[in-house]
């Protein structure tokens, strides 16, 4: 009797298609994902039922932290050629008779939110890396010199808003304030915006589902 030979089968499954698919998905997600931009202050937003998504282009963001300090941010517009940030800074420099170098303009266009008077903005731009900029912002906070000035004597925020709207007429305004911020501080910012003829605001909130029923 001859021995029956069992055909040897490899226990391996061919994972190639799976790996292919995964690689594809991974590339897709890596390319499409947008990471959260750096925030100058920790802001814990309140929640609402609104499901509207924040616009990711052409938005002027005003952040208000717990102490009522104001931070300002805007994007570069629909594409990189529009250079809104540079244009706004140019106008701002003209307004406050300041000088920025071309390199500073270029660096500024790549940065995000800031909260300081425009007179010391060049110091912040000149910092070598994001960590040093954060440190600079923190030092200002300790010295209580942070935030965009909003008082009537030198209302820089009003100028930032006005000049931004001159550069881009379609810009939308987003307001991000902390839950614990005093309403008066927020109201003041809303008033400044309304003086500049901005009547529509996007308040950043967290999504929270609520079910309602009518009781009889």
């Amino acid at each position, binding site marked *: 009797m001859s021995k029956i030979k069992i055909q040897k089968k*490899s226990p*391996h499954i*061919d*994972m*190639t298609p*799976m*790996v*292919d698919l*995964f*690689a594809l998905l*991974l590339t897709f*997600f*890596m390319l*499409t*994902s*947008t*990471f*959260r931009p750096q925030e100058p202050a920790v802001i814990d*937003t*309140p*929640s*609402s*039922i*609104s*499901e*509207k*998504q*924040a616009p*990711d282009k052409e938005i002027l963001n005003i952040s*208000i932290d717990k102490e009522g300090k104001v931070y300002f941010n805007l994007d570069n517009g629909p594409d990189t050629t529009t250079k809104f940030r540079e244009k706004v800074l140019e106008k701002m420099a003209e307004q406050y008779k300041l000088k920025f170098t071309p390199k500073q303009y270029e660096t500024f266009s790549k940065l995000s939110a800031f909260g300081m008077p425009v007179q010391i903005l060049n110091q912040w731009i000149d910092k070598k890396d994001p960590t040093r900029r954060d440190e600079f912002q923190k030092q200002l906070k300790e010295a209580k010199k942070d935030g965009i000035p909003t008082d009537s004597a030198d209302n820089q925020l009003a100028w930032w808003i006005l000049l931004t709207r001159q550069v881009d007429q379609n810009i939308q305004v*987003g307001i*991000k*304030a*902390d*839950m*614990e*911020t*005093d*309403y*008066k*501080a*927020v*109201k003041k910012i*809303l008033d400044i915006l*309304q*003086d500049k*003829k901005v*009547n*529509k*605001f*996007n*308040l*950043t*909130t*967290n*999504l929270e589902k*609520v079910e*309602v029923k*009518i*009781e009889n």
Partner: protein
Amino acid sequence: MAEIIENSSGKGSGGGKRKPKKYSAAIDMTPMVDLMCLLITFFMLTTAFSKPKVMEIVLPDKTIDTNIKPMPIDKNRAVTIIMAENDIIYYYEGLAKADSLPSLIKTDYSKDGIRKFLLKRNKPLLEQIIAFKEKITKGELVLPRDSVNSELKKLRNKDKVGPIILIKAADNIKYKNFVDIIDEMAITNIARYAIVDLNHLELKMLETAPK
């Protein structure tokens, strides 16, 4: 990445009949798959949640046009909500007059607080909205999303009996309170509300308000 299946007939390895030792050319891809799985999950979760949500509010233009008279508010529809310190809400129905100050009712931002009252007041409109939404979920009415919203807007504009809410803020309230009350308006589908300042009568009423 493809798996190469080695040819079992060992031709071309010289003239001898000695078979070359077979090595599997397949690489174990499990760790790679593991890693990719992990990365995909990470990217999927971060992308989905990183887009913030916004609540849109539109405030009336501040430039006063003398040609337009302010709309008179029906006494029976007026409801004034006053947001006060420590997450307290006071409200009263009707309008305040110097000779007969209405008493303030104290409530809060919870589910059984102001929401219950607003739902009760806004019942006629809410019933219409719920009936309309039901029609859509049951498929009796097929509409694109945009026209659903405009239909809802129409329903709100047609509303003639629902409350007109005047939202007022006392001192020392937090931004959270403001967002909460606007949100409450959205939850209870209030058709008309406005954010206004406190008048002197209400300041007086607040002094004697229940703490």
